[in-house]
Structures are given as C-alpha cells and as structure tokens.
C-alpha cells in the first residue's frame, strides 16, 4: 500500500482502513473513490454503483478494451472486474436501501453531532439533485463522511446541529477529516483519533459540535 502524500490522501487512506476484506462499498464521486488507492494490505472490496453493478474496476486505461455500456455513478466509462455483475435500477436500490451495502462513503457540506448530513442543497442556490445519496445513507450498514475539517473560510463543517436541508437524519457513523476521526454515537460525537499533525485542543477548537474526548485519543497511523 502506498502512503498518503497530502491531506486529501490522508483522509482517503484513513477511511480505507474501515474497509474489511470482501466488503461491498459504495463510494461517492470525487474524493471517496480515492479510498481504493489506499486499500490496506490483504483487503479486497467490491465496488457497488447505484446505476446497477457490483464490481466496478475504475476507468479504462491505455490498452484496455473500451467498456461499452458500463458506466460509474458519474456516467463515466468504467471497467468491470471478473465476477462483477450488472442489474436493473430497481434491484440496485433494493440492495442499497435493504441494508446490503456494507459501507457508503460520501462528502458533506455539513454534518452534525447527531449524524445528520447535508450534502445536496445549499439554501438560495440552485441544486443539481440528490441522485442516490438519500437512499444510500438511509440503507447502508455504515455511513462514513470524508471531508476537510473546515470550509474554505475556516468555518467548522462539523456542527452541533445543522440548519441546512438534510440528505439524511441521524445517518452518519464516522466523520474522517485531515485532523480527526469522529465516531457519532448515541451519546454524541466521540473524538477517536487525531492526525499526527494536530492536537486535541486544535480539533476541539475547529469543531462546531461538542466533542466527547476520551482520556486517550489515538493518533492516526498510515
């Protein structure tokens, strides 16, 4: 496994450590798909895509046969690995909502201390639609949000209670950022790990939600 070289790769690498061998995972477009670059040794996962396949194997490279009629959730051509399968949207969303996806990873505008997620609509701005995100978070066994800890203006993205239009209510299990791993529990958000480059005090200061801080907070390892 290669080592992360920047903050975004650190988030992907730490998120991938949640994956267990044989898991069915659904990865949002963009940063979540980077998790596949950092699979722990001995861990192989099957990538589910909402448009009706399990076993996606990334974009075709030079020398690959062009995959006719196989696209990922962004509509881009994708390879399908041996053992992969295709099915209709009805089966796909039954699978998703029915609790058969082990881990869903997606991004956030905001996530709150109760695990409510906002990632599809900013009030006052035109929305492109939620696609399959609301179904994914309502059905997956584990939902992980990967995000930068603060937005570009430095405001916390992990807030006490989000006022934004929700994607899902109390659906997030873990938040992984460049600074921390936060476990959303019924008691509240627990600071489980911090990055080697920060302190508990800095994470608490940059988090809008009131964190539960155990006596020993682990340091992320890569």
């Amino acid at each position, binding site marked *: 496994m290669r080592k992360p070289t920047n903050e975004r790769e650190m988030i992907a690498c730490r998120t991938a450590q949640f994956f267990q061998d044989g898991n069915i995972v659904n990865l949002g477009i963009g940063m979540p798909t980077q998790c596949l670059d950092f699979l722990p040794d001995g861990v192989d996962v099957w990538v589910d895509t909402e448009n009706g396949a399990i076993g996606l194997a990334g974009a075709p490279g030079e020398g690959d046969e062009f995959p006719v009629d196989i*696209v990922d959730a962004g509509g881009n051509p994708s390879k399908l690995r041996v053992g992969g399968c295709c099915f209709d949207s009805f089966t796909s969303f039954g699978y998703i909502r029915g609790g058969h996806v082990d881990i869903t990873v997606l991004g956030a505008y905001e996530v709150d201390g109760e695990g409510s997620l906002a990632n599809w609509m900013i009030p006052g701005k035109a929305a492109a639609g*939620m696609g*399959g995100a609301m179904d994914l978070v309502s059905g997956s066994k584990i939902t992980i949000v990967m995000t930068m800890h603060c937005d570009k203006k430095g405001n916390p993205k992990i807030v006490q209670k989000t006022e934004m239009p*929700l994607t899902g209510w109390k659906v997030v299990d873990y938040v992984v950022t460049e600074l921390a791993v936060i476990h959303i529990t019924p008691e509240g958000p627990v600071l489980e790990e911090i990055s080697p480059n920060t302190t508990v005090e800095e994470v608490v200061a940059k988090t809008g939600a009131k964190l539960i801080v155990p006596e020993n907070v682990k340091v992320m390892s890569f």
Partner: protein
Amino acid sequence: MAKSKVVSLAEAMTHCHDGMTIMLPGFVNCGVSQTLIEGLMQAGIKDLNIISNNTSVKGKGIGKLVHDDRIKHITCSHIGNNEETCAKVVAGEINITFVPQGSLCEKVRAGGAGIGGILTPTGVHTPMQDGKQLLEWDAAAGKYKFVEPDEPQNGARYILETPLHADVCFVHAYKADKMGNVVYHRTARNFNQTFATAADFVIVEAEHIVEVGELDPDEIMTPGALVDLVVQANMED
C-alpha cells in the same frame, strides 16, 4: 406466427403527441433511447412532461429536448451532468421535481405493478417529505399511524410515495425480437426494465432486431407482452 411489432421511426412517432407524459429511462447518457428522442426532435413534439433519472449530457439524448425547449416539466433525481438543464431550471424555463433515485424507481414500479404506493425511509426529515404523508410504525398497536413532520419520532418512519405512470415509455434495448422481447446490455439496463412496465404505450429501440425464437426464454429481461412497437436503433444518434 406472432405479428411483427417492428415499425419505422416515423410511424412510431405517430403515437407521440404534444403535452404527453413520457418516461425516458437511462442513467446520465447510458441506456438512453437516442434514436427515439431524435424522432421526437424531427417530429417537432413539444410541451413534454418527462420522467427520467437525469437529462443526459448537453446536446445528447434528453439534452437535445432540453436545448430545444421541448420540455415543460421534469421529474428526476439529478441534473448535474447537464449544465444547460441547470441553467434553464434556474431561469424558470423548465419546472423540476426532484425525487431520490431509489424512490423514483419504486414509484414507477408501483405504477407498473398496480400498487397504490410504497413506504420508504429515504428522505424522512429532509425536504423530500414536504407535502407528503408520513407513517410511523406503532409497535404497541402493531400497525402504522400517520404522523406530522414535527412530531417526535418513536418508531421507524416512512414517506408514503405515490405511483408514477406515463402515456409513453421509450426503452433502449441491446437485442429485441420482432415480438418485442428485450435483452439489455450491462449498465445500460438501469431504469429501462422498470420503466417499461409503467406506460400505456411502450416503444423499444433495439441495437439488434432478431427473429422470434432467437432469444433464449431465460435471457429475456422485459417480456414482449409489455412492448407495443420495436424500432431499429441508429447507433449514429
């Protein structure tokens, strides 16, 4: 021998009219009926109410209908792949109703299967519950009760999503026999299989039209009994 359902594109378009509600299955631009949509363009059909998952990409598939202002209203889950749709929605030129992707498929399935609605946890406590009926499981009573959005939640809560139905559905097939039995290819199947059940009139475009008997009965994904017409897909479209 069964009567052939194979017709020309122009003949198929005589079954389409201004103001109709039409299902256009496909995912982004995969499994979209490019030839039949080109037929709508040539026939000048407009004021369409579209039920689809996306609006393809700019200038292709459903994107042609967007570009030429043929659409009044779209029911879909996502338009982010087509910047022209986004701009026309913002400008108020197209009305839009967003439905979560899984709920969209279930609503259409209900429409095609004679089911009065479905209960889904998707979208509870989000803007997707606005104006819809909510049911919550009452464990003590052993039955559902209707609840208001601001009531505290004490059990599993669901949105009652109602069925969707259309006048016409365009289906993109990999292979179809002359009776309209259909085989889809890879992820181009997506919404085609479900949407083909929920319209009064179903027109299939097929990349390959084969003789009756050439398809193995077990490989047929949409029975020809659901299909009214078959048109040869032009892969240039």
